[in-house]
């Protein structure tokens, strides 16, 4: 069998473009809309202070600090504590002297990550095919 690289390359590229388009259009097709303007602006604050170099969202990001996906709903933690930690810093984290409006946007961003799902690995179970899915919450 002769391999036709140009044809195969073109076919795979078309499939890839279609797949990419499908992902870009997901917000249009979704019925649940998380976030909005404040989430979008809050994400910019997250990037401006480079929070991602130490912290994770859904287990993706840095390894020096804890995952912050559900920090606002974690037992014993709330918005007040998060605000205080950002201003005062911790043993390893420097204090961030950010303006109030930026801090508010960052909190809005963390609220939408919290509302988007669960990142705690203990809340997942394996299926028969080796895939994982989150336990259903009441």
């Amino acid at each position: 069998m002769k391999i036709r690289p140009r044809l195969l390359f073109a076919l795979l590229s078309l499939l890839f473009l279609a797949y990419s388009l499908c992902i870009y259009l997901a917000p249009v097709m979704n019925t649940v809309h998380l976030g909005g303007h404040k989430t979008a602006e809050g994400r910019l604050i997250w990037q401006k202070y480079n929070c991602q170099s130490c912290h994770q969202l859904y287990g993706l990001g840095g390894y020096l600090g804890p995952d912050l996906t559900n920090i606002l709903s974690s037992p014993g933690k709330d918005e007040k504590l998060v605000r205080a930690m950002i201003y005062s810093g911790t043993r390893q984290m420097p204090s961030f002297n950010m303006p109030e409006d930026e801090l508010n946007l960052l909190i809005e961003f963390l609220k939408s990550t919290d509302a988007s799902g669960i990142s705690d690995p203990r809340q997942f179970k394996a299926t028969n095919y080796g895939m994982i899915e989150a336990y259903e919450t009441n």
Partner: protein
Amino acid sequence: MKQTNNHIGKLFLGSALLLLLLALCFGLLASLTYLFPDFLKDSFNFTTLRPLHVSMAMFWILLGASGCVYSGIQYLNKTPVSEKLAYLQWILWIIAISGILFSYFTKNFGGREYWEFKPVWALPIALAWILFLINFFTAFKKIGEWPVYIWMWMTGILFFLFTFIENYLWIFPYFRSHFITDMTIQWKVNGSLVGAWNQLLYGTAFFLMDKITNTQNTGKSKLAFLMYFLGLFNLMFNWGHHIYTLPTAPFIKYLGYIVSMTEWVFFVKIIYSWKSTVQSFQKHYHYFPYRFLMAADFWVFINMGQAILMSIPAINIYTHGTHITVAHAMGTTIGINSMILFAACFEFLNFPKDKSAIRFPNGLFWLLQLSLLVFWLSLNLAGIQKGIWQLNSPQSSFAVMMDSLRPYFTLFFISGLGLAFALGGLAVILMWQTWKKASP
């Protein structure tokens, strides 16, 4: 085939080696933060050191890969590349890297993980890449049947450009305001970008195999083409394995899972077959390129096993977000990407072949392999412990868990010193030899 001066390839490779030295310095400083949490906390802290280390390491790979492709073009010498475009490409890279370094030093962030600089500095990189694309197609457009490594280089250049632009979709509020879609695209990009530079580097590995054996056994083989398409398929569709816990569409995760299981297989087979065809005089004549390609082969085996296991979601849930992921990332960038780049540097920078010249680099080669093994193991052990902590209930605090990882971080730092000495030493030796030959 005839050998030409290759000064463009050497310019890119030499610059890449310099960036590697910077990456090593910043990496060592950043790793100290794991041992001494207060280290430079209020000045040059981890939020600055991590992007400095990661960006310089990525630019080592990207500039190095560009140097390999230019060296390949010069060697094949079908149609000469435009030197003006190549120099302009290099200048654009230097502008971007200088701007990015300045941004990081002044804590002027604003980008995504791995690309923490403001989007304005992405412009010269994108422009440089477009020039690279033009030069590449000018050189190879008249060739009827491309060997596999030219296909791989073309794929790497084209897909890097596509995913690099896709990497900045977040600047549009439409994408940024939908958090889950935004994260999905971010990790689609990260997966495909790595796939793109892997195409550039594996293409270089295949080119070197043909160059060393002075044949076209690898470049024209059917197996090599099957491997190439498998790699391309993975580049396009396997990135879903990064986001199993993200509440995105299930078909993305299933596709990522299934495609990931097909990864790597043919690459190992080809290198293994190639090894048996190399004659002893060729091994001796291409002493370091041969050794570094063999080392890459070893690290492909190690990382292939780990990658396949980590791509199974039921296992991934234990490793995700732990240092096992870091071990895999470091194992592949140092063990595979950097080994191929060093093989290319020793070949293209015409390192002397006399016995006295190879003794010290040979020692560094073995220090590199040993240090990387300890480094990789220490990160995996830290990752296993963190993975157990993640699944514990009730859970100790994050700070207590991090304190318990200290022995592994100590080992990580010591082996990191060994890695820095070996990689840095090899880089300095190569730059010194190139400079010595270039000076009148």
